[in-house]
């Protein structure tokens, strides 16, 4: 080993890996590890959290069914990430602005889009983006949402609104230059943005340890002067509590925060042909199933006499019925017209486009 008398890089490197324990309230055996935090939740709160996760998993199962029937377009499976997604989004207020990535459709629905709109987005229909929610459409370009979140947050701040920007990316997303730029801008301008990294272990097939030598992804915010934290992403209570604390901190005018949730994608990257058995084994996956966020909270609720299998089954049926209604509604939306695609490209169509619009309108009226 090369030694120097003026600087000990080894010690500096070692220090980087000295990470605080991820924040947890309920451990994987459903044992309460932070009693004070746990006691701050009412029984109703706990049941509500459970319902949200059951809803998200039911949405996933039904969407996968629709996908197998050929009734969906692009779909990024969410199973395993319910605590991370629902826990964080439940800390959002209606006036907040959401910048989701493509796996964050459940959060977009929680924030006000309808399931019908989500299905239309999946199928690639513009009506899917015309939701009432204050949100961007799910971002396909990884990292772009982080840049835009800084701008949205600055806009909200300049408007004098009591609102923040919530944005999501994944472990792979933290490798994009735009992620650094967005966080750096948000830090430099001290704007109200919450950056959430859902570290689910894989960017399609590339494992987290091949993305970066950084011991944590939360550390990536540190260089931008942004406080960041790792949280157990399979513990919905911890995810909610940390996101809520972050929002409170941001709203108080303290600038942006970054949260890394440690979670796992049980399924494929997308429903379009990704086969996870090519890059991970059941042995890799098993420990994460043992940490399952639904099992974890369900046990607590059952011990308290607040939950039963029958209750859950009937909820799942109820939810799935709403998803089946939603896809029928989506089926009923007429296909988009080329003339309308041209019209929405600009507010004021160019002279050439006016001619194109006329041409297509004539065709379409036949």
């Amino acid at each position: 080993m090369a030694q120097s008398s003026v600087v000990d890089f080894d010690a500096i490197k070692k220090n980087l890996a000295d990470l605080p324990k991820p924040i947890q309230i309920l451990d994987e055996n459903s044992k309460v590890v932070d009693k004070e935090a746990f006691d701050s939740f009412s029984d109703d709160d706990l049941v509500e959290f459970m319902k949200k996760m059951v809803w998200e998993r039911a949405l996933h199962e039904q969407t996968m069914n629709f996908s197998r029937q050929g009734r969906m377009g692009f779909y990024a499976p969410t199973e395993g990430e319910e605590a991370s997604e629902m826990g964080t989004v439940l800390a959002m207020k209606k006036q907040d602005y959401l910048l989701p990535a493509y796996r964050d459709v459940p959060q977009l629905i929680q924030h006000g889009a309808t399931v019908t709109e989500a299905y239309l987005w999946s199928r690639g229909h513009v009506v899917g983006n015309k939701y009432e929610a204050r949100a961007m459409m799910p971002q396909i370009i990884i990292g772009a949402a982080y840049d835009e979140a800084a701008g949205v947050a600055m806009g909200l701040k300049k408007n004098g609104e009591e609102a923040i920007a919530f944005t999501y990316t994944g472990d792979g997303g933290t490798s994009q230059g735009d992620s650094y730029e967005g966080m750096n801008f948000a830090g430099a301008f001290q704007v109200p943005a919450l950056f959430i990294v859902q570290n689910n272990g894989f960017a399609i097939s590339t494992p987290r340890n091949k993305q970066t030598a950084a011991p944590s992804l939360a550390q990536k915010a540190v260089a931008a002067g942004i406080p960041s934290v790792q949280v157990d992403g399979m513990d919905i209570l911890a995810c909610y509590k940390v996101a809520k604390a972050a929002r409170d901190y941001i709203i108080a005018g303290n600038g942006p925060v970054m949260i890394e949730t440690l979670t796992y994608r049980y399924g494929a990257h997308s429903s379009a042909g990704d086969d996870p058995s090519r890059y991970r084994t059941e042995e890799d996956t098993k420990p994460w199933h043992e940490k399952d966020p639904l099992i974890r909270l369900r046990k607590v609720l059952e011990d308290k006499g607040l939950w039963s299998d029958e209750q859950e089954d009937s909820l799942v049926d109820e939810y799935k019925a709403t998803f089946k209604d939603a896809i029928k509604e989506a089926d009923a939306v007429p296909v988009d017209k080329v003339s309308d695609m041209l019209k929405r490209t600009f507010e004021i169509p160019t002279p050439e486009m006016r001619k194109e619009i006329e041409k297509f309108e004539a065709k379409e009226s036949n």
Partner: protein
Amino acid sequence: MAKKTYIKAITDALDIVLDEDPKTLIFGEDVGKNGGVFRTTQGLQDKYGEDRVFDTPLAESGILGLATGLGVTGWRPIPEIQFMGFSFEAIDQIAGQEARMRFRFDGKQHSPVTIRTPYGGGTHTAEMHADNLENFFTGVPGLRVVMPSNPYDAKGLLISSVESNDPVLFMENLKLYRSMKDDIPEGKYTVPLDQANVVQEGTDLTIVAYGAEVNEAKKVADKLKDKASIEVIDLRTVSPIDTDTIFKSIEKTHKVVIVQEAQKMAGVGAQVASAIAEDAILSLDAPIGRVAAPNSVYPFAQGEDYWIPGADEIEEKVNEILNY
């Protein structure tokens, strides 16, 4: 009226839009205290404050992402990319994000961004400072590309660009910044987007040009005036192209030479030629003439002097087409 440089005309326009619309914001690298590296934003931070005119960290994608986000929250951003070559760093925010916002949301959300950036050769800058990159951006649906050729148009077109709810890439010619002065009316006036300008009328041949090449074309028209009556059209907006004005002109002159400072491949001139070939070819009695830069990588500073096409190349091509 006062004689003003291209730079001062732009500062004037920015002053007017900042004053008229409290939602306008100017930001970018060094645009605040320093007034921009070319002083186009000189004095604006002092006048309107740091909330309206501010410096950003040095990252082009971050600057334009900021603009996209500000746009959807009700602001009217006027970001500056310090030199157009740096826009390569921000291609996604321009083509992948801003230009698609209205389309994505069917107008329910949009981001009315005007990106200002200097381009163009002849001032012997470092690499990546002078390239004519309009050929890239005219291929982006949802984005207008505006390239004024003189101070009067620069002011009027910039005000129109900012007032437009559609995103505009506003390209400012580096060489013209200080080399050209015009009588500029005080106060507000606009020059319409999407419309070409017949800067000189003629009957024998039409030169279609834009940016700094308009001035080269005018020199040629002037030099040859005893021999031929040449009409000069300044496109002003290069995406979309005002084909009606071009077609009307060539119906009269029957001859056309298309001039651009950028490389010949896949660009504005090619688009003009294709539009003529498709819809107005029978107006012509000679082949379409083209003057453009060679298809090499943009030259280092010393090569600019003989690489960029100028009046000599235009004159040669005009004579060739006139004598066809």
